[in-house]
């Protein structure tokens, strides 16, 4: 299992009020799986994705990423894990506006200490892979939403991670460019990456082999898993 959650609880504290976002999640996602995560707004999808992506720590329970429990890691070790194993794609793209597409894609490789010429070469290859070879030196503000999301996907691939996490990657896109993005992600899954996609779109959700339904911070149903 590349992703394994045991009794994961996440409680947000707003002053004295406690907001339980996840209330005991048990979930295993095998290597190379294509999983979709669905559920009503506020059901805890993003919270769960942030834990899998090592962006946050659980209140209790264990989150194993490739065998490592993230609750035991310090900030630097978390950063290293994110850098090596995780590629995150956000609904709001989260590109850096002052950098060009090429520089945005090269950024995670900078943190890994890859030389400038090597990371520029690889960033260019990745942008070609997502079909943006004509947009290398455009800034995010000069790109369409679909193009921005493709830059974000290229960035997620920069350090060749095992896991691609996409939290509503099509949420800000029209149907056509949403389709392009989903197909691109599926392509990566076919190349061997573990893919987890959060989506509100039932059609997109159905395309995944493993379908997880969340409700009120708990797993309501998992479809498509062979228990044999």
């Amino acid at each position, binding site marked *: 299992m590349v992703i394994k959650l045991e009794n994961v609880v996440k409680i947000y504290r707003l002053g004295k009020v406690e907001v339980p976002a996840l209330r005991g999640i048990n979930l295993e996602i095998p290597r190379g799986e294509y999983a979709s995560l669905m559920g009503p707004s506020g059901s805890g999808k993003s919270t769960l994705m*942030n834990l899998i*992506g090592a*962006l*946050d*720590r659980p209140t209790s329970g264990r989150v194993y990423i490739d065998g490592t429990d993230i609750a035991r890691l310090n*900030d*630097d070790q978390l*950063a*290293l894990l*994110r*850098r*090596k194993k995780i590629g*995150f794609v*956000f609904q709001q793209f*989260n*590109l*850096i*506006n*002052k*950098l060009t597409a090429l*520089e945005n894609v090269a*950024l*995670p490789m*900078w*943190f*890994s200490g890859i030389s*400038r010429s090597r990371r520029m070469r690889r960033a260019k290859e990745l942008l070609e892979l997502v079909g943006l070879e004509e947009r290398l030196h455009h800034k995010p503000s000069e790109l369409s939403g679909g193009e921005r999301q493709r830059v974000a996907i290229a*960035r997620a691939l*920069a*350090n060749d991670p095992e896991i691609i996490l996409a939290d509503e990657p099509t949420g800000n896109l029209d149907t056509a460019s949403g389709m392009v993005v989903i197909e691109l992600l599926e392509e990566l899954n076919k190349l061997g990456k573990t893919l987890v996609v959060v989506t509100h779109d039932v059609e997109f959700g159905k395309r995944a082999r493993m379908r997880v339904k969340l409700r009120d911070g708990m797993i309501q149903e998992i479809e498509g898993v062979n228990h044999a």
Partner: protein
Amino acid sequence: MLDYLSFSFKNLSHHKVRSFLTLLGVIIGIMAVVSMISIGSGMKASLKEQLEQLGSDKIFIIPRLAYGTAATTLTDEDADAIERVAGVAFVSPLYSVAGDVGFRNERKIVKIYGIDPEKAEATFGGGASGYRLLKGRWLQRGDRYKVVIGYGVASDVFSRDVNVGNTLKIHGVNFDVVGVFKKTGDREKDYTIYTNLDTIREIFGAGDKVTMIIARIDKGADIDLVRLRIERMLEKRKGSKENFFVMTQKEIIERVGEAYRVVQVVFGGLAAVSLIVGAIGIANTMIMNVTERTREIGILKATGASNAQVMKIFLTDAAILGLVGGGIGVALGYLISLVINAVAARYLGEGVLTTTVTPELVLFALTFSLVIGVVAGLYPAYRALRLNPVEALRA
């Protein structure tokens, strides 16, 4: 390292207005510091120079003024008596008066010094006083109705230049100009007319009164002891020591020095204030910078940046702002100090105030702006770092 620099330049040039304003804050602060400190140290230097120029072998005897007039009078006899005091080498009596002086059809009030040419030369001999002739000759004993004029009187007081051979009408009496002094840089000296003691006293009906006596002591004599002897002797002659000052050169310079010190404290204070203002300016923009970039910090962390790497990114920004702003500030401060020099030379006289920008000052200013920039950027960056990536991304 190069990557951090290029990332910073991208960031700073992306936020041009904000970067410019921060830079401006730093520049103004550092500029003020450099120019203020350069004035302060320039004053110190010129005071030191004056001290050295004057020497330390003269004693001044001046009547104390009460209600604007001298409470006692000193006379030629007092001067002779002082000359007889043990340890006194020469004595030069002086009668000074502000008189009305006519040149062609203009009339001005000018300060006139009546002196004994030979005694004055003996007392001030060796060029230590800064007087040097530009044209003509110095006064001689027995000269009647002759004057030597300071550079300012020659060139500035009247609408036309006064030259050797011209005639000045002092208190209605004609005097020939026989010499003109070079500019000394001392306003007091440059705007004075010098003539023979007896002639001027005659014209103003001053009898044998003098307004100041300057005594030069024997080489190697103890100046404080000689001063005390003169004081005792005059006390006996005049019946009281309340009515005149007997001061050494050192005491006079100390008094002047005190005034300079006050000025220096004032300039030092201004510099301190501008330092603080500069520091607050940098801190303010750095805090703004970091706060506005909380989301960017989230993105950097989500894509794998460690806290140390994010910190380096922000500190590079701050260091660049500090150094570039500091550099420009130092350059402008140096320019201002040059302007002050030019203005001071023009209106106060050559060499009265020469501001100095030392390498130490430049180094100090640059280090200071660098340190302020980094320290001001450190705290907000540290705060932003403590947010986890999820919280930072929500900003």
